[in-house]
């Protein structure tokens, strides 16, 4: 590999490795964890890292921090995955229809997107979450309701330009049905954009979930979500730095890995896209 190729693909490989690490931690959490993540042991509260049996120490209730960080990967990836899937399906489909069929429904859709984009993402998701209620399912709903517009916009733009291409017009001239054209010609052409947006949104959703849980909404204790663990750690910052350090580091490394994969996918699949 030349220097340029290494620069282009090297970081992507690092990202893939980091992401696989998180996925393995999430899948193998029950086997990797030395303890139950929500079992308290009041006799062993706030043990520092390196304590025998608790490599990362314990929290204020004596719960093993390593177990909680590992199970936290499950929560984070589950929320990220569900939200990306939901937003890609809903936003992608609406954007595809708006771009391909156009008309007043497309215009209305884009105006809704404009209104939604005139509000900061995290504040929107937070407000929706505070209204619809707390918990795992509602945080996925809130993030999706706030995040679908990005797909709708990108996919609509792509669909509009694909529609003008000669082979699509040739297919129309040959009498190809609209549904077949939509799924046979337009969808495969907008798929790279959807993949790139999804990978770039993935870490944004995970970090947003953690931020919302950190503020006291979203996923509630004792569920071991990184955001709510960080929220609890604030009260113990003077005595137990590890409670804040490890869940946050796990979150940062996960976000870093996914971002690197996302940047790499964009460079390879769709270098013009700016999200």
């Amino acid at each position, binding site marked *: 590999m030349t220097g340029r190729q290494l620069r282009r693909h090297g970081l992507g490989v690092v990202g893939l490795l980091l992401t696989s690490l998180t996925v393995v931690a999430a899948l193998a959490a029950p086997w990797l964890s030395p303890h139950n993540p929500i079992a308290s042991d009041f006799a062993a509260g706030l043990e520092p890292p390196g304590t025998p049996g608790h490599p990362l120490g314990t929290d204020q209730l004596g719960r093993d921090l390593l177990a909680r960080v590992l199970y936290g990967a499950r929560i984070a990836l589950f929320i990220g995955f569900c939200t990306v899937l939901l937003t890609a399906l809903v936003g992608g489909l609406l954007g595809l229809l708006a771009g391909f069929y156009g008309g007043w429904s497309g215009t209305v859709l884009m105006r809704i997107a404009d209104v939604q984009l005139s*509000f*900061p993402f995290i504040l929107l998701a937070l*407000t929706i979450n505070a209204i*619809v209620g707390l918990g795992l399912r509602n945080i996925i709903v809130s993030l999706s309701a706030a995040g679908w517009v990005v797909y709708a916009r990108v996919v609509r733009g792509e669909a509009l330009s694909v529609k003008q291409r000669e082979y699509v017009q040739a297919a129309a001239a040959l009498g190809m049905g609209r549904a077949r054209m939509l799924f046979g010609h337009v969808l495969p052409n907008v798929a790279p954009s959807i993949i790139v947006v999804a990978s770039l949104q993935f870490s944004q959703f995970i970090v947003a979930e953690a931020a919302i849980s950190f503020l006291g909404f979203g996923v509630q204790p004792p569920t071991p979500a990184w955001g709510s663990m*960080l929220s609890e750690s604030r009260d113990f910052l003077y005595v137990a730095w590890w409670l804040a350090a490890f869940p946050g580091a796990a*979150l940062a490394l996960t976000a870093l890995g996914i971002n*690197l994969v996302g940047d790499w996918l964009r460079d390879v699949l769709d270098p013009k896209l700016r999200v």
Partner: protein
Amino acid sequence: MRGYLLSRLGQTALVVFLALTAVFFLVRLSGDPVLLFLPMDIQAKDLNEFRQRLGFNDPLLVQYGRFMAGAVRGDFGESLRYKRDALGLVLERMPATFALGGVALGLTFCLAVPIGVVSAVKRGSIWDYLGMGGAVLGQAIPGFWLGLMLIYLFSVRLGWLPTGGTGGPAYFVMPCVVLASFYAARITRLTRSSVLETLNEEYILAARAKGLTELVVLGKHTLKNSAIPIVTLAGLETGQLLGGAVITETIFAWPGVGRLTVQALLNRDFPVVLAAVFMVSVTYTLLNLAVDLLYAWLDPRTRRESPA
């Protein structure tokens, strides 16, 4: 130009109107509004009296009309917690948020633009790798975690900086660094790619061929032409700073609109939430308008109509 401004202001009004409508109906349709507005341990008798007093027994559209009529006059009702005019409460907190956002924005540009330009000009050098590595890290590290770690290091361990609150310049340091970190990372990367693109343009070659010094080529010909995408993103991101402020203000107990909004959401103080939604959407759309006007100045090609 005047027509353009008027139509953009009209759009702003429409966006604010739709945002308020959406939040109003979300609040009302997501369950008994009275339960949302009141603490959990309220008595049944008080509940009915409250419902009658605030007019929740009226049809939904009547309530909506009443809310909008109030909103037009800047009346969002009384804060349930502070027993004060909700909009006044929000307006009182705006200067603190603007101060924080303004300093963070300044810090962002002082860091991001020079690093981005150096990375592009010295492409492939050690400075490029350091700058881009920092930007990639800055984008991945969540602000609220960075905030906690800074508090641990500089307040708990070293005792150099206050953990939170507001006061002299020392109080600005950590919140501004946290708020700026993510945006600085994005703007650094964008500056680099934008400058790289401009350096490939023929007029840069022409400027060099004319024998202009590198300083003039970079400072005058490259930077001004690279500025358009940077200003675009900065405009969008300036609005997102308002979102980032929600988290930063909460960590550092900064008395701004973001912290007020989080507290209002936690206390189910919805008049304050609606007033905050109003102010945030007004600020955000006006910022975007300012950015669009800035474009017209930077790039005459984007002027929609000549100022006759």
